[in-house]
């Protein structure tokens, strides 16, 4: 009878507690190990799951309210984009290659993250953790859907967008991102959190989304800016979850430190290799560029990653093992990968091109120590071959790294004129690697990586090496979706339509 009619509203911390931890219960019909069978085998020791709190203290009721608001904002702009010939407002149709790679390689990763977090939310015993993972699972599903939806408008007008699901499963460059997510999803729940929550979200998404979305704005692509920023508004929460997960493991038991450090070493390098694609998109595929890959790395890699590892040093964490090799690769990777994409452009479901003189001047200003010395002469040679009517095409198949699945186009950390190549023999079979980082990862878990599906061997094992049959199988239409941008249907259409839009002829 003492209850007051109007109760004081709960504070954020009490509300969070009431709507997360208080929803949990002690099981009585089943024992805990049967309910959470995967939480111990990785060796991570946890003494008190209640110590895991979401520092944003977001509860499900607030979550739905804000996510609904984000969706309303998103669809208002997507509708306007479709109604206002948004496909003609981009700077240049070359820009679309970056979007095609995004749709074929990254958006399916969002869906994979959705599945992974749905699973992690079920496998962790802590209620705070379960709720945070559940929110992230829904976020990632939303990301996959909004990205596919936003880019579907371009599919009505341009090539290379029509079969992203086949590309995701079968084409070669997409398997870089796919193998990253498959590797994470087939790991235990704690390793999954380091792989996606920490490495991908905290260390990498800034490099992927922030300069790239700002770049989309610069290139007149409102649809992409919108899905990018809408997705990114969830990422602050995802990054925080990843960082909290690391701190939680390190605070729970000192025995967790070596396990966590080994995962940081592994997943930093795995993630850094995925960034090979991103560096090329930033330096070569945006007709108007906001910043170079090198500049983005300075801000989000060196400065932000440096701050993070300095902060974690109090637990005994050191920067990842591949950190120095990564720094040595920064001024080379985008150029080496674009040269690779250009020579194998018969097998890409997007266009590549020889950079213009103006683009090359920009590249040499941004990469004063490397571009003119190592890469401009190669482009100049390729340009001469094209002018002579004998364009440089490489119909040989690339040697892929058994771990990251990139073709081995990268050079030795200390010698940019020598291709980096490592080998391991395991159970009588030889395996190839692009770097020490990838070889170390394999050597730690060979039984996992010998099962990798690699696209080049698949061309022979599944299709007898028939490239035409392979193109049908990956839904790549030869002459439309692939090859040089110069002379492509995308180029022709864009110029015609742009002409119609800006004149009355």
């Amino acid at each position, binding site marked *: 009878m003492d209850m007051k009619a109007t109760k004081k509203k709960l*504070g*954020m*911390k009490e509300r969070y507690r009431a709507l997360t931890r208080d929803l949990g219960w002690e099981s009585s019909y089943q024992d805990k190990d049967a309910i959470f069978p995967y939480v111990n085998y990785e060796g991570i020791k946890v003494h008190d799951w209640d110590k895991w709190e979401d*520092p*944003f*203290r*977001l509860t499900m009721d*607030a979550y739905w309210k*804000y996510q609904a*608001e*984000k969706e309303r*904002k998103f669809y208002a702009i997507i509708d306007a984009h479709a109604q206002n010939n948004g496909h003609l407002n981009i700077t240049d149709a070359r820009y679309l290659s970056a979007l095609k790679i995004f749709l074929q390689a990254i958006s399916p990763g969002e869906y994979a993250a959705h599945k992974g977090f749905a699973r992690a939310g079920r496998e962790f015993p802590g209620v705070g953790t379960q709720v945070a993972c559940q929110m992230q699972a829904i976020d990632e599903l939303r990301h996959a859907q909004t990205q596919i939806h936003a880019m579907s408008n371009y599919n009505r007008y341009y090539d290379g967008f029509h079969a992203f699901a086949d590309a995701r499963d079968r084409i070669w460059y997409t398997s870089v991102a796919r193998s990253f997510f498959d590797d994470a999803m087939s790991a235990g729940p704690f390793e999954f959190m380091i792989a996606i929550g920490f490495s991908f979200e905290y260390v990498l*998404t*800034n490099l992927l*989304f*922030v300069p790239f*979305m*700002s*770049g989309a*704005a*610069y290139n007149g692509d409102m649809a992409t*800016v919108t899905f990018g*920023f809408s997705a*990114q*508004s969830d*990422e*602050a*929460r995802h*990054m*925080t979850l990843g*960082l909290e997960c690391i*701190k939680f493991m390190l605070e729970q038991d000192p025995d967790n430190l070596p396990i966590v450090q080994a995962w940081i070493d592994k997943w930093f390098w795995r993630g850094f290799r995925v960034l090979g694609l991103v560096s090329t998109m930033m330096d070569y595929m945006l007709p108007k560029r*906001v910043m170079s890959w090198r500049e983005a790395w300075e801000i989000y890699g060196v*400065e*932000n990653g*440096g*701050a*993070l590892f*300095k*902060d974690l040093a*109090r637990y005994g964490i050191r920067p990842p093992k591949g950190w120095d090799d990564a720094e040595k690769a920064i001024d080379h990777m985008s150029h080496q990968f674009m040269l690779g994409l250009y020579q194998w452009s018969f097998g890409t479901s997007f266009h590549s091109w020889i950079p213009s003189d103006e683009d090359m001047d920009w590249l040499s200003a941004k990469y004063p120590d490397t571009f003119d010395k190592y890469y401009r002469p190669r482009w100049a040679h390729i340009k001469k071959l094209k002018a002579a009517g004998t364009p440089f095409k490489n119909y040989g198949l690339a040697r892929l790294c058994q771990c990251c699945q990139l073709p081995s186009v990268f050079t030795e950390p200390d010698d940019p004129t020598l291709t980096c190549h490592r080998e391991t023999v395991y159970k009588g079979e030889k395996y190839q690697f692009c770097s020490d980082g990838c070889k170390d990862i394999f050597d730690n878990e060979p039984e996992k990586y010998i099962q990798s599906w690699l696209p080049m061997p698949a061309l022979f094992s599944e299709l007898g090496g028939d490239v035409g049959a392979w193109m049908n199988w990956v839904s790549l239409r030869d002459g439309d979706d692939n090859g040089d941008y110069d002379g492509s249907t995308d180029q022709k259409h864009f110029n015609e339509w742009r002409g119609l839009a800006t004149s009355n002829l």
Partner: protein
Amino acid sequence: MSTVFIALQANEDTRPIIDAIALDNPAAVINRQPAMVKIDAPDHLVIRRETIEEQVGRPYDLQELQINLITLSGNVDEDEDTLTLTWNS
């Protein structure tokens, strides 16, 4: 010293919020980039509900920040009055 940061979409909702952050963090540097604003500060940044309410002229729930947030860096702590970002360096 390490840099903490927060990036927000550049739009009408965030203009007064950015002003409020600048008022509460004299050491912060505001970088305006295409479609976004990134605010850097040495080691520590605080966002206060009260200061935002003075700028927007209405009651404000700090969790509304979620809608226009792009990214951040640092250890997060949030309650109904403040959101802080901190690096231990």
